[in-house]
């Protein structure tokens, strides 16, 4: 059935996720998974990025500003931003049928809506800016990993932005809030809240994306937001570093 072909996010049986005050992978509650970012990994794209966030492996590519086809999709006074989130069939435990499912359509929509107010679309009338992200391996938090990669790819492509987007989730597991949940915490946890923030002049200015499913009190939600902000600042530093490294490499090459 059409309406079923998706990665249903099912609440599974209870598993103890916090043992002796530590998470299953030994991380502290406010600790990110290891992150690896490399800018400029693809030749054909105008900007690109490879990113690992824990066991997630994603690639982002940016094409544009370029012509928009078909023409009636053009906007006379600004660029059209597209965002396509896609999972490779082999990226998950059970092979995923190729092509968009309802989950990826939704993620693509909210991710695009996060970038639209940040990209200086008015500089490129009638143009298109395309952001493509491919999940090669998935392990919870793929949408946040992809948003982080997309930001680096956009900078790599030289797309002017009002700020940088940095994304991380907070989960509630065994009654406590934890930063950047991995697969087990996402599957067996009580709540998951992915955030994306706009960072400008080195500080968080606003929320570009927020979704949530699970159960949290109002107070927990506010605490989760604070926790996510701290995590985002750490990721932001790594995004900057990857960009710098690329530019440095280019400069060395150019000398």
């Amino acid at each position, binding site marked *: 059935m059409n309406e079923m072909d998706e990665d249903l996010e099912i609440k599974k049986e209870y598993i103890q996720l916090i043992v002796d005050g530590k998470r299953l992978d030994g991380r502290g509650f406010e600790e990110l998974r290891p992150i690896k970012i490399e800018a400029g990994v693809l030749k054909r794209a105008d900007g690109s990025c490879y990113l690992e966030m824990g066991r997630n492996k994603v690639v982002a590519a940016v094409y544009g500003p370029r012509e928009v086809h078909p023409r009636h999709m053009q906007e006379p006074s600004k660029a059209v931003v597209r965002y396509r989130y896609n999972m490779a069939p082999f990226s998950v435990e059970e092979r995923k049928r190729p092509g968009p499912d309802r989950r990826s359509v939704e993620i693509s929509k*909210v991710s695009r809506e996060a970038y639209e107010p940040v990209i200086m679309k008015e500089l490129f009338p009638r143009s298109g800016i395309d952001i493509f992200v491919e999940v090669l391996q998935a392990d919870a938090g793929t949408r946040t990993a992809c948003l982080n990669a997309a930001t680096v790819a956009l900078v790599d492509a030289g797309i002017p932005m009002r700020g940088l987007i940095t994304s991380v989730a907070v989960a509630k597991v065994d009654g406590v809030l934890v930063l950047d949940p991995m697969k087990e915490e996402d599957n067996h946890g009580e709540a998951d809240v992915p955030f994306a923030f706009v960072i400008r002049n080195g500080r968080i200015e*606003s*929320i570009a994306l927020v979704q*949530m499913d699970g159960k949290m*009190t109002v107070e927990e939600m506010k605490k989760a*937001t604070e926790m996510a902000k701290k995590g985002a600042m750490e990721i932001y530093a790594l995004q900057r570093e990857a960009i710098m490294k690329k530019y440095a490499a280019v400069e060395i090459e150019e000398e």
Partner: protein
Amino acid sequence: MSEEILMDIKKDYVLSKLRDGERIDGRRLDEIRPIEIETNLISKAEGSALVRLGDTQVIVGVKMQPGEPFPDVPDRGVIITNAELVPLASPTFEAGPPDETSIELARVVDRGIRESEAVDLTKLCIEEGEKVWMIFIDIHALDDDGNLIDASALAAISALLNTTVPAERFGLGDDFPLPVRNLPVAITSLIVGERYLIDPTRDEMSVGNRIITITSDKDNNIVAMQKSGSYLLSEQKFYELIDVSVEKAKEVRELLKEI
């Protein structure tokens, strides 16, 4: 007059009223339109409800049938939520496979029901690993005068409250009422500059599709959230919206208790 110019005029009107802290239909900023819930309209469905939220109308039908459980939760019923934005309901809807708007609508409604554990799925196992009850929640928009999300979420939980599991028809014992144990309520707000309008109408949406939906349950837990639309949200406003949404949900939930 072209649709576009009309939208611009509406937008100006909405904004000028708002400068005086008023809404074009006279509501307070945090006031929800009158709600009518009619249940049990569709006797062919296991449960059904028509919700009128102002002039917005949504009908939800619930169908049930035995099916296979998901392998990782072999002892639980399955919920499948689907939304059709049929072209009857709005001049802007088009026939065809679900687009991103109807997919998002279905998924946001689904999350509220799923995460609040509104239906006790453990009571819907027929034979572990083999056969469980499948619940199809079909959202059918009839008239979109704004805020289809809250109307759909309300119609969905109303229809579930009204659902009888058709065990007899499938030779699986006596019919029994669907075990519903929580009452999620979605509250959607439109962000306009420094203000927000709860339960926006379509005319109000002319200022820009910048909304956030916050669903809370009977214990005032947040169970689902969705920021939707191209805009940036300040942290301060986010916190305010959480508080007010949970409050307003309480009001609406009273209506559900009467079903």
